[in-house]
């Protein structure tokens, strides 16, 4: 087998050296009745060519985003990632290294994590960021748990603009941990009255901006009310590119910022792996979940980096840990950091402007289709349209015409008639004028 360096000669010699007659002697501790004597019922080994053919056949049953006019967002976004990024993250020294527990020989990983933390802190205008979470949704769950630790309160208020699957993750995690989650109903236009939900029992209020429906939310009043009540504002975003144009949560008063970082450096990958961004105020740093990389010096006085504050973590604290997060999204951070270092502030702003401009153009085209209403007034690269019929069928009809048009809200929040006709539509830098015109024309046809 191509991955196994031992030859049969090696095996025989080594068994002799170990002092056993057969390999099965080494498995003697397994209860005899549970030992497998035959192969399990699965195919035998296969060469590369065969594996490639089998997997390529599966891949060819899917429609890649790049192959069609593509407007699907709602938490994951199709962006162009420079080829340098994918090349660099495949460097053996990055790809096949472990968590940097031996800092002397993993400064490569540690330094990029330090760069990543700095980039995230600057982007969000927060004091400190960690070395990543799995993704935005699980990061949001951890943020709520952290708010509970900080405030010693048990009630979390979730905006109706929060991504529905994020909400489910928070409800599951916090609920099982014994907390109360107050989730507001879906809020396509961003007009909910969340302030009245915040009280002295509230640990945190979780608001997404731009929200699930694309609406940009002014976080400042929420921060004010939360702070009045001694609660924390957890600000969430799913589209990090938006920070190139809109005011960062840090300057609006957020206490914890959680975001999905996929848009920068990472592909769509059918939903994972992604990279969760997590930042907070300096005073809460010891309540933060996840890994942290810190600066220090070595015995020769040279600057170096180490994982730090790991006394918060489960491999030290066990049942007293601040979270059960262990593995993070190392390689996805690296992709993020490289892409962001290529963009720089200048490039990110340009990219954000193109995204917004494309969305504005698309909005104009779709609004002109008879029967279509655009719900959002302030948005970045995504907005919600109300169609004259159920969005699900329209999307399927458009898919048959080779256009991937967006996400029907009903896919994530089924059974609500008032949401049945809503479609969340995104337009990033990959969309061309032709793509947008095709979409509008096809939509008109389908609705006709």
């Amino acid at each position, binding site marked *: *087998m191509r*991955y196994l360096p*031992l030859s049969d000669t*090696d095996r025989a010699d080594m068994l002799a050296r*170990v002092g056993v007659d057969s*390999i099965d002697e*080494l498995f003697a*501790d*397994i*209860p005899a009745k*549970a030992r497998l004597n035959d192969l*399990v019922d*699965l*195919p035998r080994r*296969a060469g590369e060519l065969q*594996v490639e053919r089998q*997997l390529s056949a*599966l891949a060819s049953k899917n*429609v890649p985003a790049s192959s069609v006019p593509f407007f699907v967002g709602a*938490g*994951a976004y*199709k962006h162009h990632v420079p080829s340098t990024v*994918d090349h660099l993250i495949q460097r053996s020294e990055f790809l*096949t290294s*472990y*968590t*940097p527990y*031996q800092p*002397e020989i993993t400064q490569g990983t540690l*330094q990029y994590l330090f760069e990543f933390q*700095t980039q995230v802190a*600057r982007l969000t*205008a927060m004091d400190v960021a960690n070395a*990543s979470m799995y993704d935005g*949704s699980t990061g949001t769950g951890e943020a709520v748990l952290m708010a509970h630790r900080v405030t010693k309160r048990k009630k979390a208020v979730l905006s109706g603009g929060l991504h529905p699957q994020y909400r489910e*993750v928070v409800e*599951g995690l916090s609920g099982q*941990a014994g907390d109360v989650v107050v989730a507001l109903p879906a809020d396509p236009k961003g007009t909910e009255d969340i302030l009245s939900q915040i009280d002295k029992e509230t640990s945190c209020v979780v608001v997404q901006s731009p929200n699930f429906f694309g609406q940009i939310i*002014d976080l400042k009043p929420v921060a004010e009310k939360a702070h009045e009540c001694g609660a924390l504002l957890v600000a969430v975003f799913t589209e990090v590119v938006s*920070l190139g144009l809109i005011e960062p949560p840090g300057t609006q008063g957020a206490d914890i910022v959680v975001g999905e970082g996929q848009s920068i450096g990472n*592909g769509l*990958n059918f939903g*994972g792996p992604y990279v969760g961004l997590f930042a907070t105020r300096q005073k809460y740093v010891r309540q933060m979940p996840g890994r942290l990389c810190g600066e220090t*010096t070595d*015995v020769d006085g040279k600057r170096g980096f*180490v994982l730090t504050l790991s006394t918060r973590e489960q491999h030290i*604290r*066990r049942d007293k840990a601040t*979270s059960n997060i*262990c*593995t993070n999204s190392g*390689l*996805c951070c690296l992709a993020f950091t490289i892409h962001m270092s290529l*963009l720089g*502030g200048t*490039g990110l702003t340009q*990219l954000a402007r193109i995204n917004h*401009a494309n969305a504005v153009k698309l909005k104009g085209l779709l609004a002109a289709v008879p029967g279509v209403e655009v719900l959002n007034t302030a948005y*970045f690269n995504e907005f919600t349209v109300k169609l004259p019929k159920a969005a699900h069928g329209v999307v399927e009809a458009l898919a048959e015409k080779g256009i991937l048009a967006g996400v029907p809200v009903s896919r994530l929040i*089924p059974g609500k008639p008032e949401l049945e006709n809503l479609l969340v539509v995104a337009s990033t830098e990959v969309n061309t004028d032709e793509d947008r015109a095709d979409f509008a024309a096809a939509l008109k046809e389908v609705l006709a």
Partner: protein
Amino acid sequence: MEEPLIFEFGRLDVTGVDLDEPEDFVAELGGNERKDALELPGLAEPEAMRHYVRLSRNNYAIDSGLYPLGSCTMKHNPRLNEKMARLPGFGDIHPLQPLSTVKGAVELIDQLSHWLMTLTGTSAVAMSPKAGAHGELCGMMAIKAAHTAAGRDPKIVLVPESAHGTNPATAALLGYKVVSIDAKDEDGTVDLEALKRKIAEHAGDIAAIMLTNPNTCGLFEREIIEIAAAIHAADAYFYCDGANFNAIVGKARPGDLGVDAMHINLHKTFSTPHGGGGPGSGPVVLSDRLAPFAPLPFIRKGENGPVLVETEAGTVEGEKPFGRMTAFHGQMGMYVRALSYMLSHGSDGLRQASEDAVLNANYVRVGLQDLMSLPFGERPCMHEVLFDDTFLKDTGVTTLDFAKAMIDEGYHPMTMYFPLVVHGAMLIEPTESESRAALDLFIATMRDLVLSAKRGETARFSGAPYLSPRRRLDETKAARNPVLKWTAPEPAEVTPVAAE
């Protein structure tokens, strides 16, 4: 040459991407525009390339040498897997595009599920957990949901001392009280009689046991079936930490041992790359009893192929998902890699890999046992071998020193000070990816180090490493006054010039 941080040489007016300014830009941002410029430096592409290539050269990696990190299974990461994960049909599809346009993706997840269930002898699998600890959480949430559904509310989870820290952390997160169970002195495995006593003591209040098998001492729990029976008899569930599954793939099925839930680290056993700390993937296989509680999303067999169930509304009679672990469908990129690994090995190759992993560990054991100290005697180990620091007694060399000295010899250290059940633990897992020649060289080097320590050459250890990109780093300083991001030594000058 020392490599600076990007903030020290990048410039605010430089960008390494070429983007056109949109024509006739009109903002519809509702007055939420960013006021301050973004203080993020840019790099031209050649600068970025060189910076990250140079950084990478400060890392140790599987591809550059033996990486015997016990319980971490640092095996070869085939590049075929990377290539497959990058097929546009997998890497460039959106989690929420119409299901009619991702049939192959759903089929792939279904195929991988089938492999995992078959190899573990179970009948369900929750695919979405994002890593091992997340998988534990998922498994324990399923257990909690099952208790709740049965109208029970037990408060205790039993965890042996040798367990990974994530086990008690997970139990605690869910509000359980962690009760430690005793290990047998002679080999660190669970003491069945002591366990039975503990069960009796907390009769009716035990939710589950969390056990790693093979355990973190590199030994297989011989009484595993009896342990499972005792736990089941107490109306509790058997959660197995699957971190060490690589020892027994194709040799035994956890389902046959009485396991109710076990996460599988695709980034250990099934070769998806560790990536400097992630991403991982931790699907959890479930017994019949737990299967109904598997979280969303899950796959149901349908008449025309697998059906992806994403919401409560999509469930049918008997499906009682406890909720959702993450947005979307989990770590698709890792699924592709893991399936590529499995298809490549096949049933025969997977079994052979486990046999080779165990053989390699034992080969290391017999190569070192006369000079180093085995805490539980010279019995065969599974895929990793545990030494304690008895052999360093009176040398003035600690486990940490010894580990750091290995770096100067060109090796990544083994796992140290874990498990906690032995003193100064050194846990060595060579994996099946090492050749006999590589093991011989490793053994010879380790023997040389041991003899050097015994000869009293302490400077070789206490000052180690000498030859690495950095020498020992001051971790106390890092923790005492944490510097977690770069700050300009003085106000940065911003030169407002148009970017190229």
